């Protein structure tokens, strides 16, 4: 079943309706992915149980920067799920939806009688996806945590560190968004299964495992060879030099030399043909054996150079190279603005706001990403009047009694 009247942004998932009972980042990010592919995504919210992201960084819950930076093309409906009537309204919404996503505390959906067995009684082919740190059950299913907890438990943190030092992992922010993306992927796969069989299903997603799945070949190789992978800085067993090298000021350049031609071209651009003829660096095997000396020699040659200009010269010479981009580099990058990696959407406060657009461009008839994050309850009328078919009188009464709050 699809919903021809949905208010999604057009595009490939047009007609798919998603109900989102989510907070903070991983859950809303899953909703965003689906909305940016054209689904109609309705976020269930209330004043009494607000998404913390509406409170971070300011007091105006309708203009909170964290919230507006994630929730584009999302619709917002208010309902107090702690009231029996509110809960009943949510169930009526479920009956009109294809997918329900949540990332609230383990057991909370079940306690609200919104577990999968409850939902399938309301809509037999519903697809429900729960995102939890450890999944929805199991010996550690009760535990909760934050993005760096997922990464640490997953095995990822242990693999990211400078050689010989305590592994510090990726940036502390890494973890939520990747988990949300995995959830969105599984939801769309489940739509296909429903098309094939008529059957809905329950998707039990563990954020920790989302991180672990990003280590696939490293963990599989451990199973095959018995060699435990280690935090290895920027080491690559098949490329050398391979890493980040200092440039002027606080800049760095990334280099990945994978062939002898690239190696010779690097030496030429750096003006050091002696390096190319140095017997310590004559072959890949020798460069790998002497890589610390090689890294130091290259750092001496790059240290006084402009990272962006050097990278440009190297790329023209056929050497894969790119400046290591800081946040100010990224914000001011002409190529990214030109390609609409950042794009403008509507904004209730300022008229328009730049957002980070999806990684995909789909044509023809791709999804439009134009509407900024919703005001709290901005789509109450649409959801209650049009989707659920309530009278205005009834809606006014629900608002007056704070069932819709």
């Amino acid at each position, binding site marked *: 079943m699809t919903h021809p009247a949905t208010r999604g942004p057009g595009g490939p998932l047009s007609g798919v309706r998603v109900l989102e009972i989510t907070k903070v980042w991983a859950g809303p990010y899953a909703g965003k992915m689906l909305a940016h592919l054209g689904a109609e995504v309705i976020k269930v919210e209330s004043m009494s149980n607000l998404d913390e*992201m509406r409170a971070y960084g300011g007091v105006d819950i309708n203009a909170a920067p964290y919230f507006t930076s994630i929730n584009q093309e999302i619709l917002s409906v208010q309902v107090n799920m702690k009231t029996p009537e509110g809960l009943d309204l949510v169930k009526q919404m479920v009956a009109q939806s294809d997918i329900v996503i949540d990332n609230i505390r383990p057991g909370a959906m079940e306690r609200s009688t919104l577990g999968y067995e409850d939902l399938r009684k309301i809509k037999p082919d519903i697809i429900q996806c729960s995102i939890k740190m450890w999944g929805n059950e199991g010996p550690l299913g009760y535990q909760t*945590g*934050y993005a760096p907890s997922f990464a640490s438990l997953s095995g990822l943190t242990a693999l990211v560190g400078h050689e010989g030092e305590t592994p510090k992992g990726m940036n502390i922010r890494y973890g939520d968004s990747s988990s949300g993306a995995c959830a969105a992927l599984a939801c769309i796969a489940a739509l296909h299964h429903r098309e094939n069989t008529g059957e809905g299903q329950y998707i039990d997603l563990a954020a920790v495992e989302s991180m672990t799945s990003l280590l*696939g070949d490293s963990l599989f190789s451990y199973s095959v060879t018995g060699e435990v992978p280690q935090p290895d800085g920027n080491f690559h067993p098949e490329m050398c030099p391979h890493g980040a090298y*200092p440039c002027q000021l606080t800049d760095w350049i990334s280099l*990945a030399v994978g062939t002898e031609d690239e190696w010779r071209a690097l030496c030429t651009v750096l003006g050091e043909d002696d390096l190319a003829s140095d017997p310590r660096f004559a072959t890949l095997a020798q460069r790998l054996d002497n890589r610390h000396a090689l890294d130091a020699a290259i750092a001496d040659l790059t240290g006084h150079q402009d990272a962006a200009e050097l990278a440009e010269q190297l790329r023209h010479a056929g050497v894969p190279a790119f400046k290591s981009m800081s946040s100010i*580099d990224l914000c001011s990058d002409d190529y990214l603005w030109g390609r609409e990696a950042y794009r403008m959407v509507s904004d209730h406060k300022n008229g328009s706001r730049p957002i980070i657009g999806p990684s995909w461009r789909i*044509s023809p*008839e791709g999804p439009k990403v134009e509407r900024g994050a919703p005001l709290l309850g901005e789509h109450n009328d649409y959801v209650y009047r049009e989707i659920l078919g309530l009278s205005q009188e009834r809606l006014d009464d629900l608002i007056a009694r704070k069932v819709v709050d």
Partner: protein
Amino acid sequence: MTDSPGALAGITLIEIAERPAGENTGKLLSDFGATVIKVERPGGAPTRRMGPFKNGESALFAFLNTNKKSVVLDLTQPADRATLDKLLAKANGLIDDHDEAWGARHGLTAAEVAQAHPHLVHCAITPFGQGAPAEWQNARSINVINAGGWAYHSPSEMPHEKPPLKGAGRFLPDYESAIDAAMATLASLHRQRKTGKGQFIDLSEVEVQLNRIDCVLDRMVAGDADPSDERTAYDMGGPGTSFAAKDGHIYLFMTTKGHWNGLCKLMGDPAWAKEFREDWLEFDCTKENVVRFREKFSEWIIGQEKLAISEAAQKGGVAMVPVNTAADLPQHEQFIHRGFFQQAEHPVFGTVSYPTVSYKMSASPVRVVTPAPALGAHDSEVEGL
């Protein structure tokens, strides 16, 4: 566990990708049950020649190509190129990750594919998206993660003199890109069911990197926060980091009075902890206090065993976790309970353990059914097309 053939039963995809970004996209989809026919050049895909090896076989290739079929085609030869067109005519989708010049040389540009096969979903994964300067398009994984900003800001709290890092393993940005590429492809295939029409998906690996940091970087793009050249620009502040324990490492995250009180109790309320305000994490979280806390906490945690102390911490409301190593995971009770690692036979390696996926699907579970194919194992299926 059901005997479901997988969520994507009945869908056929042709994979001409030759890098982990595209190959893992194909794997995510083949593990969902799609028929993925991998087109390999004579001599085999480049990843067959990338290590580590055992008995001459690449573990990397064996991981990235589970549940796929292999046919050998030399796409520079007209007859083989025509065979590819015959495969595409019968398929639902095409997965590519070459640069645009390669597509042009092989008659596989977006326009050419759309013209010849209007029903086809064509996903092209490239480092910077279509239209990037030609010399940018040979960027490798480490260039992508540096171009996308995660390397510069990883790990957290790095001083300017330490090099930015590539992330875990060789291919972290490839795995991230594969998720988005598979997702967009599946969305478009859903539309194909309704309309019979194909679409072109232009997937930028660097833009995946940007999207994953949306609520931090976008606030800077929009002027709500200041961008800078600081390596700490994505950080959160606070005492959260990894610490050395007796038998490995733990990660501690703390932001509230509740976390602090829980930790003090766990440590047996030491005298030094009383020098901190009860609400210091919320209202007095200065750099000096973070340094002082870490110094004292480090002295205590080095005497603790990572699993036992983390479990006690969790029960006391403290978000402390062990930093699990690759060797810890297969023996970990929660991973075992969820069946994350799947044991299976591989014709060269014997019994191996495949890491799988984070989504347990009740009706269409993801399974490794067949190991990565031998080169050209399915050539006979395309003969006479």
